[in-house]
């Protein structure tokens, strides 16, 4: 059987190869085009600059069980507003496709999500207990939820470092970058302020280094995003160092910063205290002993 089929096929091939003219030229051209396209693709892969947009690479490496767990959490807590398959619900919540794990971390760990009620902008509150990053279980759940969102369309990811590793060495440099990029809304020492349409720039007193970093990466709510190419990771860490260096009563050489809300508080304090002191001294001056 083999021998009987081989002969006609071989003869057909040899006949085709012998075919002169049109068909052969077309075949050769098609082959050349394929090789050319392939080479171009290969060259492009080698030469093209790496895109700075985070890809879903990490998500593909994530544990499927973790993603499934995350999906479960999502379906329990987020699906009402963000819809099935993270597609968003018109008029209620945006799509989370491509939002990335950093956005999930920021919104959930600061307690902004789940939202208490529909409003212009979420505000900071204690995170829900099962997603609290300060407990082992909450941390696991939060990671699973983040992995689930990351698995759908990728998005910005948190850096590998955590905690003190995110605090830079040079708060002065951070202050420079903060004044140029952040101070317009968050005020000079991160005390926040009012914005348009009921929105506001929050006070940064309680934000952890991870949350500040995640906010810069993802640009939550009205905030613009700052990719690692517009603010390098080093600059981001210095900004965090600066914020920590002006927190509480730090860096207030007068002894007390009066809430760092600017000249109104300072002027008022000086006026009230000064007036009382002046009146007291005047009364004492005129008093008969």
């Amino acid at each position, binding site marked *: 059987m083999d021998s009987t089929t081989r002969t006609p096929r071989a003869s057909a091939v040899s006949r085709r190869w012998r075919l002169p003219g049109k068909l052969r030229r077309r075949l050769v051209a098609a082959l050349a085009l394929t090789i050319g396209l392939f080479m171009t693709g290969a060259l492009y892969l080698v030469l093209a600059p790496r895109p700075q947009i985070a890809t879903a690479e990490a998500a593909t490496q994530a544990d499927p069980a973790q993603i499934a767990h995350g999906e479960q959490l999502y379906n329990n807590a987020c699906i009402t507003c963000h819809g099935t398959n993270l597609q968003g619900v018109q008029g209620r919540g945006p799509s989370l496709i491509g939002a990335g794990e950093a956005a999930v971390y920021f919104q959930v760990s600061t307690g902004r999500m789940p939202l208490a009620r529909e409003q212009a902008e979420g505000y900071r509150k204690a995170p829900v207990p099962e997603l609290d990053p300060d407990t082992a279980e909450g941390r696991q759940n939060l990671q699973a939820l983040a992995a689930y969102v990351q698995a759908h369309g990728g998005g910005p990811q948190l850096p590998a470092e955590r905690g003190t590793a995110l605090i830079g060495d040079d708060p002065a440099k951070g202050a420079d970058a903060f004044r140029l990029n952040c101070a317009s809304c968050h005020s000079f020492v991160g005390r926040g302020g009012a914005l*348009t*349409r009921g929105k506001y720039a929050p006070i940064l007193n309680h934000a952890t280094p991870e949350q500040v970093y995640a906010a810069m990466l993802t640009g939550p709510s*009205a905030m613009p995003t700052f990719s690692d190419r517009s603010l390098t990771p080093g600059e981001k860490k210095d900004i965090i160092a600066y914020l920590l260096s002006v927190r509480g009563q730090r860096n207030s050489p*007068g002894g007390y910063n009066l809430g760092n809300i600017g000249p109104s508080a300072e002027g008022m304090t000086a006026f009230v205290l000064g007036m009382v002191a002046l009146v007291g001294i005047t009364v004492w001056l005129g008093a008969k002993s």
Partner: protein
Amino acid sequence: MSTEDPALGEREPQNMSREELARLADEFGDTTVVAKPPKWPIPATKAEKRAERSVALWFILSALSAIAFVVTFSVWPDAYVSPFQDGYLWYKLYTPVVGSTFAIAMLSLGIGLILYIHRFFPDEVAVQERHDGPSDELARKTVAAQYKEAGDDVGIPRRSLIMRTALGAAGLFGVAAGVLAIGPFVRQPWKGGDQAPLWITGWKPLSGETVYLRLKTSVVGEIVRVRPEDMKPGAMLTVFPFRESDRGHEELLVAAEHASDSPVMLIRLPPGTTVHKRPGQENFNYGDFYAFSKVCTHLGCPASLYDSQNHISLCPCHQSEFLITDSAKPVFGPATRALPQLPITVNEEGLFVARGDFIEPIGPAFWEIRARKQ
């Protein structure tokens, strides 16, 4: 007049006691001391000693604080130390210590003086005659005559040459002083015609040199030019003009950052955002990238409180809002002109460059703003 005074009587002043002379001086001023009880009638009591010591104590405290101030001011470390470094506590205490030592020195001196007055000055009761109305006719006439005589003696009415030249000199000196005071305020804003500073900004290409969009970093003189891939959708960066000829010239780079007409907001809108462009500015953007002057058209504050969801840029000074997706048209607040748009593109190196200067003046309006020759 004093020779006529009846109070003197026949007594000669050289024979009077100090107390009598003082009373006499009071009487010349029509003053009568009614009562002057001494503060400490019995000298050198324990209470008096205590009062004396308490006053001296304040002066000593003042002196010690003054010494402490001089010492701390000279030797206390005042170089900046960040809260994460050793020695931050010392740096933090510098201002309070220097301030409080100075304040205590001054305050104790004052308290000591007032306390001295309170404890040791007599509580004198005196009555002084009150003089009403003008002086009497004779006194006025005599004083007027005195002045006239003095004028005649120095000869001003007769020496008209001196008087005129003196008046001229004084007047012209006054004019000179006035010019000195007002001169700096007088400017010709239209020097340079079409190239007057009000019409052009730092983005104007000079002798055909490319103007790049540059980021300011915290390192002075560092040059970071912006590429489209540096920004994600929803990003906003402040950029400044940069020319290759500025490279290495720190003062030129700093001047470009500090020029009040330079700052530009470079915004990347999310893909698919509906944008209404102004006629004549359809090609000023590069894809989703839009560049607008950061200087508010109301009074020139930086209008860069950018809301990346509503695409509104807010000016913090008077709450003017500019809708970026409507060519930065003002939608709220006192501003009446849209933020001028900078025409941008990307060159063959993949870097953002300005295609020219703004086509309209940036910042607050002025009388001649519509009078520009195109």
